[in-house]
């Protein structure tokens, strides 16, 4: 822009080498060892449950990057323009994350380690001793070909938009003008409509059908809240770490403050949908619904069940309500890490009672695989990030972002 009066180096690129690269590779190695360890010592079901947890988490964080991008475009947000390369890097990883999740779903389904509540010998055969009339009633939807088709089509569609949105912005760097912006706007709208209307189905399939007898209309939005909060935290944490390494000097405490406010607000939203789902089921007390929370109130899960609320709602609310703490990168980074761990626990509580049930475990397999997937995400995302400059220099709102002040 001709009006630019700043001294920032907009062509600055992230150099992906040295410590970040080494550590993410080490983390991936730990993850591989943990998977092998899990299969050998903890059994395949628990290992598969963890694989599903982490690959779903990975896909969700990447999809959150795409949602963030799309929402910024359709709302014509200016403040975030300078940081948009980070969610773009997240978004670019979505195709790989989708493939990993798909592979685990396929392997888990056909090896009967996952989804065995609805996919198994004789469940829909009235002659069989295993016949389950309830499962049989929904087999028009819950069947292996339909399940796989939906996973492929939905994640394929999300990945397409994820890649395109990043691509338009990279083109904008080269070409300038309004063309990329207009296209981004259009694609963002389509993405949000498609994601909005279909993500509940994707979430019902991937997670809710683990306990196929149970159902909740809120489950899709509840998972979206978790996806969104953990995505915001991952974006914020990445920006803080990049700044610490000396990059992105144009992002200041005002931008981080806004991210902190979004995390604060959507942590409340997460708790709102969590509570609405829980309270309505608890209040109505119908056996087909309460079974879900009954399992989570068994001694194996109860302490974790309450810890979930403390870590994902009470703690961030009490910390982020303080303005000077939100504007302190150290505190904000701490909250982000806590919430990323918190939503791991959130997913853990969604997945484990429907898979390993009372044989819950928490040990090297869980920790190692979480570390491994975090490393994989860091490696893929930072690799994408290093390919382009860290500022979308021709973004029409870049000037607004530089002068953002709250």
């Amino acid at each position, binding site marked *: 822009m*001709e009006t630019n009066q700043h001294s920032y180096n907009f062509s600055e690129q992230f150099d992906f080498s040295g410590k970040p690269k080494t550590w993410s590779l080490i983390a991936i190695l730990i993850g591989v060892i943990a998977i092998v360890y899990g299969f050998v010592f903890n059994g395949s079901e628990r290992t598969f449950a963890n694989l599903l947890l982490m690959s779903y988490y990975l896909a969700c964080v990447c999809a959150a990057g795409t949602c963030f991008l799309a929402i910024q475009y359709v709302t014509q947000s200016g403040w975030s323009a300078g940081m948009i390369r980070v969610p773009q890097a997240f978004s670019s990883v979505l195709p790989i994350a989708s493939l990993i999740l798909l592979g685990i779903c396929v392997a888990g389904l056909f090896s009967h380690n996952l989804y065995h509540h609805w996919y198994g010998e004789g469940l829909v055969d009235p002659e069989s001793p295993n016949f389950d009339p309830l499962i049989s009633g929904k087999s028009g939807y819950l069947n292996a070909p339909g399940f796989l088709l939906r996973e492929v089509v939905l994640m394929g569609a999300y990945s397409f938009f994820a890649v395109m949105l990043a691509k338009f912005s990279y083109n904008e760097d080269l070409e300038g003008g*309004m063309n990329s912006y207009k296209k981004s706007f259009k694609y963002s709208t389509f993405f949000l409509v498609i994601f909005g*209307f279909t993500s509940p189905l994707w979430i019902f399939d991937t997670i809710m059908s683990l306990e196929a007898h149970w159902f909740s209309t809120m489950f899709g939005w509840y998972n979206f809240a978790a996806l969104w909060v953990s995505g915001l935290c991952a974006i914020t944490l990445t920006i803080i770490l990049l700044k610490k390494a000396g990059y992105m000097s144009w992002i200041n405490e005002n931008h981080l403050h806004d991210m902190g406010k979004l995390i604060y607000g959507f942590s*409340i939203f997460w708790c709102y949908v969590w509570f*609405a789902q829980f309270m309505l089921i608890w*209040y109505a007390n119908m056996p087909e619904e309460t079974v879900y929370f009954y399992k989570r109130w068994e001694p194996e899960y109860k302490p974790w069940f309450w810890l979930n609320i403390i870590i994902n709602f009470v703690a961030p609310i009490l910390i982020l309500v303080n303005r000077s703490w939100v504007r302190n990168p150290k505190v904000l980074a701490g909250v982000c890490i806590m919430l990323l761990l918190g939503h791991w626990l959130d997913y853990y509580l969604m997945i484990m009672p429907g898979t390993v049930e009372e044989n819950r475990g928490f040990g090297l397999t869980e920790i190692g695989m979480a570390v491994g997937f975090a490393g994989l995400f860091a490696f893929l995302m930072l690799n994408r990030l290093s390919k382009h400059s860290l500022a979308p220099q021709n973004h*029409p709102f870049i*000037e607004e972002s530089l002068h953002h002040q709250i």
Partner: protein
Amino acid sequence: MSSHNESIIREPLVTGENITYAKVTDDILVSVENKPNKAWWIGFIVAALGALLWVVSVSYTFWTGIGAWGLNKTVGWAWDITTFVWWVGIGHAGTLISAVLLLFRQNWRNSINRSAEAMTIFAVICAATYVVAHMGRPWLAYWIFPIPNQFGSLWVNFNSPLVWDAFAISTYFTVSLVFWYVGLLPDIATIRDRAIGLRRRIYSILSFGWNGSVKTWQRFEIVCLILAGIATPLVLSVHTIVSMDFATSVIPGWHTTIFPPYFVAGAIFSGFAMVQTLLLVARKVLGLENYITMFHIESMNKIILVTGSIVGIAYLTEFFIAYYSGSEYEQYTFINRFVGPYWWAGLLMYGCNVLMTQFMWFKKVRTNIALSWIFSIVVNIGMWFERFVIIVTSLHRDYLPSSWAMFYPTIVDVGIFIGSIGLFFTMFLLFLRVLPPVAIAEVKLLLKTQSFEAKKKLIQEGHQHAEEIEYYTASLKKYDVLTESDIKELVK
């Protein structure tokens, strides 16, 4: 937040030539400082007759009892609760505009927040009259509060969502009223400073001694932000609790976990539609086209589209889970909405709320004033029928087929409903006469940076990308008050 670094591609929030601070005040206070015109009188007489109908119908209900309504032992809750929820829902847009959009620093709210907040308060008043009318014995209304037993009541049942409702709505009303009034203070002071005699003394008292000092403004800003922070969770809580009136019951079609956010989205949807209905008329009659621009109209239509689609997702999720749950009662309820005796109500609900709203995808529709106005009415019809369908179709065929019945409203039911609309418009029209319909002080904030003239100056100074100017001028074509030559002059 707006600043002198605002991108040129953002559309102007104030249009018109030679708009000065004085002109803003003059333009907005036209309805307050002058004798009402004929249009106002016609509107007021019609609305007041409606309000009279309300007085008669409610008095008749109090005199004869709830038996005056069309309820029966199967459908013990119908027209009355439908309209109550409808009014409460409409109220939500005002708080959304004033609080949530303030927190998100959406400056386009500045010219619509005042009327929207006023509308909120009047809608909540209409809803509150239903709460009292429901009671049958309104003179015992204080029984809903937890007061000692010597007042004649039993301790309230805190397990009942209806009690939560009483607290939620009274809190919401109080905070909305305070928020609205605090926002009004600088504008009341403006009226005071221009008035003489008794009028001046009245507005002087109402302005709470506003003196316009820096300190006063500073406190004003802080109070507004704090109130916005309080009002945001409240706006969610109110319709959440209204939804829980239904969702805590084990009635098919009522008991579903998505109800709270789905009701909140529906409330904002209907509220924006009502703001659109009122402002499209007020803008024309009061000559506020330069302040409530096509950008505002289109933005509101976009919010109607988004919230309508969220409601659509919730509808689809309900259908899907009714199938997926395998619960035959749930499945029957949803089929009954389409093929049962109330199929026409179901059609109006789904047709108006989801199908008709999808027309908003087209820019031509969003920027067409006549169509926007018609759609805003369509949405409110749809949202009334949504509540009717949820409530009556679930109740009228319950678990015991021998008790199945139909609900038919009596003339008193209809009278209270139409009367409440009259009451609403009476209050709104009176509001236009005594208080500024647009937040004067807040619109003035936009003049230097976000007005058509400010943008014009920016372009004339040079330094802007040609493609961005082109994008900007293209976006101006929808503005109904800007002529071709106005736009051409920009790029000269």
